[in-house]
């Protein structure tokens, strides 16, 4: 393998790949953050509100868990700008807002992530021992106080393993955004491979990056879990 392929600067592809890596991380982090908040909202809507809202929320989840991520990406990328200008057109606004590839990628990946995250949150809420909730009720805490101080903090702990698994799923989904033209790590590696005809070298390098990312995430998951559950685990029984 010729290492000068990976040089930084105008001759090698090192800086392009590094840029692609940053795009991948930015894509994963922003989709994850938005999707997690959205997923929590979905799980709350599903469990607390009227039947229509609850059914809509669970329908969203079922739908986005059953359609390939790639298809969702294409639909958002090709359709969102049209749909948005159509919607704004209905209320009489002429818009020329573009939803570019990066934004489309974030929207699509975060919706898919939200669909899975809402399941994790639902499970975590159920896992909160009812005794705690009864106790706080008996102490005269308001429903909101019980939720925000007792149920949610505990549920977040129980959600931690599931959420970190979803982080690893997110990392592995980000290469799909290269199909709509986002210059992520994989797109940059393909471009480098096409130019130099050294596909093997660049895809192996990309693979190594993903394996390291996933190894680091696994390590962080174990550490985090041990820390988060240091007071909880024994009380659960």
């Amino acid at each position, binding site marked *: 393998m010729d290492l000068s392929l990976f040089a930084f600067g105008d001759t090698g592809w090192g800086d392009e790949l590094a840029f692609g890596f940053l795009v991948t991380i930015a894509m994963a982090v922003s989709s994850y953050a938005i999707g997690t908040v959205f997923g929590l909202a979905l799980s709350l809507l599903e469990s607390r509100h009227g039947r229509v809202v609850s059914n809509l929320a669970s329908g969203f989840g*079922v*739908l986005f*868990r*059953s*359609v*390939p*991520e*790639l*298809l*969702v990406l*294409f*639909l958002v990328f*090709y*359709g969102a700008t*049209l*749909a948005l200008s159509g919607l704004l057109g209905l209320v009489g606004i002429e818009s020329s807002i573009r939803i570019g590839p990066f934004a489309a990628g974030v929207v699509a990946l975060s919706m898919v992530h939200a669909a899975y995250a809402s399941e994790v949150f639902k499970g975590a809420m159920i896992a909160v021992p009812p005794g705690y909730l009864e106790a706080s009720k008996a102490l005269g805490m308001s429903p909101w106080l019980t939720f925000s101080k007792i149920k949610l903090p505990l549920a977040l702990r129980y959600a931690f393993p599931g959420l970190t698994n979803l982080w*690893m799923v997110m*990392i*592995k*989904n*980000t*290469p*799909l955004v*290269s*199909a709509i033209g986002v210059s992520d790590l*994989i797109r940059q*590696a*393909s471009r480098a*491979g096409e130019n130099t*005809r*050294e*596909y*093997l070298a660049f*895809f*192996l390098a*990309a*693979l190594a990056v*993903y*394996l390291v*990312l*996933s*190894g680091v995430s*696994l390590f962080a998951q174990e550490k985090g879990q041990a820390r988060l559950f240091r007071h909880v685990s024994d009380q659960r029984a």
Partner: protein
Amino acid sequence: MMDIETFLRYLPNLLNGAWETAILTSFTLVFGLAIAIPVAICRLSRSWPLNAFGLAFVFFFRGAPLLVLLFLIYFGLADVPLIRETWAWTFFRDAYFCAIIALSLNSAGYLCEVIAGAVRAVPRGEVEAATVAGLAPIDVARLVIIPNAVRLGLRNYGNEIIFVIKGTSIASLVTIVELTRAANNIYFRTFDPFTPLIAAGVIYFVVIWTISRGIRALERNLTPQLRTQN
């Protein structure tokens, strides 16, 4: 949003694509299982080299994004003389073969944990009872461990089938015209993104929903004690 005329005109293209998706899925399920079972045995084994191999396999194929795996196999291996200039090339030159191998390895990374987990979950007492009752190890496996494990792992296996179906869409990126690609092609021709992509989404949804329902029914069927619950 949906244009009925476009939909009807291009429905055959979508169905062709769906058929390709079904083929990719079926092969992947067979090969995935064939790879996963030996790896699961490694994971369950008490010999540390086997166990370490199993662990490395899981880490590698769970950590590698499916798309990267596919590109590596499809584009990358074409550069390797050992593959390019030998009999292996008769297989690897075929895009379907590459896609099925990538999908199967990826699926096996998850599946072997499903299998190992299900076997571990078989109640120890039942295995001990069967052994004490004088059953040969092969019969313990055949009559006690496997039926129990199938029951316990069924739900997770069902989820894996769904992930495989969704995963096949990436084969569209190496010249295979499966359902996602078929929908995209219609879009590139008609410039209407909504009709073909939503129609393809509905097909995926119906198939996956039916399968998950079917798995749940099968699970109830195999697990009589669950029926009394709810």
